[in-house]
């Protein structure tokens, strides 16, 4: 075969007539930047939705990897338990102390302090605050792990072996996160309540028997709390997994993906909280 030159008409052998490559970023105007950010946001939202739908698809029809979900349950659950217990314990103490101080000023009656605190925990705080803590620990971990797999071409290697990264990486984390978020929130909520009870007892002389009162907690509170646990448990791996998969560049990209994962997951939790709480007040008023 004869050699073929793609540019045989180069005028001078030392000056190849190639157009310069546009490697540099051209600065956009304000409107251009705003438009680009808007397009990125829409594309990102669509891709996030696609990750969610594909995860659900693989939950039903994906390949079962032996031990993958259990391994992730250990990663998410066991390794977060101490962190979540300590933070929720302290939050319980702070909330009860502050609430007690306010109550003391207005109606110096602490009989319903424990009951209202428990209702607040079950309906909202245990799930929301616990999930925010999990977002920082678990979400960052997922994004960093998947992001580093992207930059080291491990994701491409997975795809070469007919393993969809959503099926292989995100699905087990999704299932494990739903289960372990529920378990962790229940445990951390209980620790928070006990810590709050001890604080009320020491700071305001509220008897423990009076504080540990579940009269105000009804089915609606439990249903809303449970729904939040499931929604947050699903959101953390989906959002942080998406941030990890959209990593570009090298270690700087992984750092950026991790930051985005924490910010976006926290944002998702707060937005979900708003909508679930709103729906909860409509379905279970009072």
């Amino acid at each position: 075969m004869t050699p073929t030159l793609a540019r045989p008409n180069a005028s001078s052998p030392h000056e190849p007539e190639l157009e310069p490559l546009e490697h540099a970023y051209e600065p956009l105007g304000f409107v251009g930047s705003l438009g680009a950010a808007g397009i990125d946001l829409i594309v990102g939202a669509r891709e996030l939705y696609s990750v969610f739908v594909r995860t659900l698809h693989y939950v039903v029809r994906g390949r079962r990897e032996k031990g993958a979900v259990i391994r992730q349950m250990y990663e998410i659950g066991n390794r977060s338990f101490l962190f979540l217990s300590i933070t929720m314990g302290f939050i319980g103490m702070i909330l009860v102390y502050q609430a007690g101080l306010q109550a003391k000023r207005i109606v110096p009656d602490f009989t319903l302090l424990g009951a209202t605190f428990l209702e607040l925990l079950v309906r909202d705080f245990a799930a929301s605050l616990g999930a925010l803590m999990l977002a920082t620990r678990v979400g960052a971990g997922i994004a960093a792990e998947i992001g580093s797999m992207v930059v080291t071409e491990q994701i491409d290697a997975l795809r070469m072996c007919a393993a969809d990264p959503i099926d292989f990486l995100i699905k087990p984390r999704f299932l494990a996160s739903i289960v372990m978020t529920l378990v962790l929130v229940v445990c951390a909520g209980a620790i928070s309540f006990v810590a709050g009870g001890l604080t009320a007892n020491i700071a305001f002389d509220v008897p423990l028997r009076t504080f540990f009162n579940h009269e105000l907690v009804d089915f609606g509170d439990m249903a809303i709390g449970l729904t939040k646990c499931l929604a947050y448990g699903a959101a953390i791996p989906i959002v942080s997994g998406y941030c990890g998969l959209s990593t570009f560049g090298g270690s700087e990209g992984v750092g950026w993906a991790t930051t985005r994962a924490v910010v976006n997951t926290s944002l998702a939790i707060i937005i979900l909280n708003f909508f679930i709480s709103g729906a909860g007040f409509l379905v279970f008023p009072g």
Partner: protein
Amino acid sequence: MITFAGVSKSFRPSGGGRPNHVLRDVSFRVPQGCLYGLIGPGASGKSVLLKLIVGLIKPSAGHIEVDGQDVVTSSELELQRMRLKIGMLFQNNALFDHLTVAENIAFPLRRLTTLSDDAIKLRVDERLAHVAMTGFDERMPSGLSGGQKKRIGVARATIAEASIVLYDEPAAGLDPVTSQKIFELLREEQHAAQATVVMVSSDLDRLLTVTDRVGMMYRGQLIFDGTTREAQESLEPRVKQFIHGLTEGPL
């Protein structure tokens, strides 16, 4: 056979800006059973070209065919089926951090075939022996040297006896002796399997001893496509300068 016809690829920077044209109007053909060497300066689009072959990224324009299958219009499911017959060694080896050496090598067989565990283990042992890594099966990738990782990468790329194998910088960062061994190993593999091979490498001295044909990329364009001898004897200034490592010239 691999065919590229007028293939271009651009990446749009996130946050706006002009697209980065990585490949421009690339056309070439790799015949069945050929060992094709792809050379060129850094950032000339070689790795992108490999990923286009297997459909890991889609071209902005042009037509790509692998053994008669249109890669551009194929669905992800069709591409997955096509990848059954393609092995790939990545530039960074891309060994899975959380799997042992044996699990890494067995991974394509576990995903792509219905072989029993015993059959897979036999095949893994045979591959490990072939790349002179017997006894390393339970080690983790983090405990391996660069050369050892490359060998495991080669073992994984060739375990499914693919009819097309792509190697991205198989000897990058290795000492000369290990590099030579890797190239000889790859040549043996190609001869044994009669596979079509596309190999990207900056180690021209060794690469040109094993290739049948050579293509040279420069700033996103394929500026040369011919036999190895033609490449070595080429008077095209950029090809000549690059192959002979001259400091004077247009590059």
